[in-house]
């Protein structure tokens, strides 16, 4: 790619993409911290995670402001225009990811280490996959690698499947013993948050596709999350 004749324009665009990388790194870190806090029942780490969200929020505002300024001053065209618009969109996805991680951290105190052993590994797998999707999609952004972005986009299906199984398992726990309902609900929200983070990663992947190719990904994404239509039949013999 040739450089812009106006160096300051080139610098503006570079600064935007650096800021996204920085924001992405922070979101990754925040997600990792929240999961660790949940797994190790570490309240201190949870509090630290909650506090860290502020920096991400500030970065989003900074990116938005800079992007608006670039549009106003430089009237970007074609690829440059798509870059600036996509930067705004991705920063908003990353901000949401930060919020969701923060929300997981908030639930650590309520869950208070009551995660059933059988669920720990499921949670672990889910968070690992979410972190991998986020990392890969950020790499795809930095290297403008459409194929990598599309792989993330498809991989989200696996995260949905994991969420599905955790959802069912939690329902079973709640039916077994009503005292489980409180922490299970928190865990369910936690799992849902991780699943939503995957959705944001796919949004980012779609935006990378648009940024590089100029074409929207219109193909229907494979979806495995069917919990919103799941029903659970109460069995007469159940002990509730």
């Amino acid at each position: 790619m040739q450089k812009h004749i106006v160096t300051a324009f080139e610098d503006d665009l570079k600064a935007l993409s650096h800021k996204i990388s920085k924001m992405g790194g922070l979101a990754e870190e925040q997600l990792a911290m929240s999961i660790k806090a949940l797994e190790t029942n570490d309240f201190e780490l949870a509090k630290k995670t909650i506090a860290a969200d502020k920096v991400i929020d500030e970065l989003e505002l900074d990116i938005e402001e800079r992007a608006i300024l670039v549009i106003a001053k430089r009237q970007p065209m074609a690829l440059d225009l798509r870059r600036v618009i996509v930067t705004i969109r991705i920063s908003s996805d990353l901000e949401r990811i930060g919020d969701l991680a923060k929300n997981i951290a908030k639930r650590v105190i309520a869950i208070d280490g009551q995660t059933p052993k059988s669920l720990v590994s499921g949670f672990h797998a889910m968070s690992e996959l979410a972190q991998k999707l986020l990392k890969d999609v950020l790499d795809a952004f930095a290297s403008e690698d459409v194929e990598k972005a599309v792989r993330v986009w498809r991989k989200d299906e696996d995260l949905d499947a994991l969420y599905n199984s955790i959802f069912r398992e939690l329902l079973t726990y709640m039916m077994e013993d009503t005292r489980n309902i409180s922490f299970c609900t928190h865990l369910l929200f936690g799992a849902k948050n991780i699943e939503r983070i995957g959705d944001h990663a796919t949004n980012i992947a779609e935006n990378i596709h648009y940024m590089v190719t100029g074409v929207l990904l219109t193909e229907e994404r494979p979806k495995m999350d069917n919990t919103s239509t799941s029903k659970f039949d109460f069995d007469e013999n159940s002990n509730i």
Partner: protein
Amino acid sequence: MSVQKTGVPMSEKQISSQVGKFTSRGVDVYYGDKQALFGIDIDIMENKVTSLIGPSGCGKSTFLRCLNRMNDVIDICRFEGEILLDGQDIYASEIDVVELRARVGMVFQKPNPFPKSIYENIVYGPRIHGMIDGRSDADEIVETSLKRAGLWNEVKDRLNEPGTGLSGGQQQRLCIARAIAVNPEVILMDEPCSALDPIATAIIEELIDELKENFTIVIVTHSMQQAARVSQNTAFFHLGKIIEFGETDQIFTNPRNQQTQDYITGRYG
């Protein structure tokens, strides 16, 4: 990338379904030994604004001038190929160039009203084309032309004052009114706003938008934003060739050609 029969790379949104006013095929233009245009194939659509963009010396103005044979007046200029206006070859021997230029009017970069009254500026063309029969005819043409050019309210009380006394933007609208007065089918504009301030430019752009209802407009502009704002189709010229021709919306958001992209985004090309 799909390739239309003209051989010009086309955007995905095809524009071939529209009606062609001008059809240019294999147009080569030479200034002496130097070739300025190479095999220009393009369809200018009726009642649309087509913008021609490209770096200085790319041949866009030369091509614009081919459309009403303005290049004829340059001795060393030689034309080869074919340009059809409504299916009729405008370079055919039986074509009356004066009549052609009445059908295909032109507005230039620098406003160039005649050193006469506003009124005389408008009626001059219709008069030499024998379109005026009496004072009331003339008055009517003056009023309609100035109204269509959005200048009537500003000058109706001083029609006998010299056209050169108007502001730059008003002078340019006077030139547009003068072009409209002979009832052309096509209006060619060669950087019509480059000598105007932003407000006068906005007024002309608004005018172009209105005029396309009744006229086919071809505009040469150095302002990417202007091309993006006013035109429906855009042709990118480079070194005497058309590099890309397609719908303006696509050219400025997702051009197919790397050279187009480099040019419109302001990169070294």
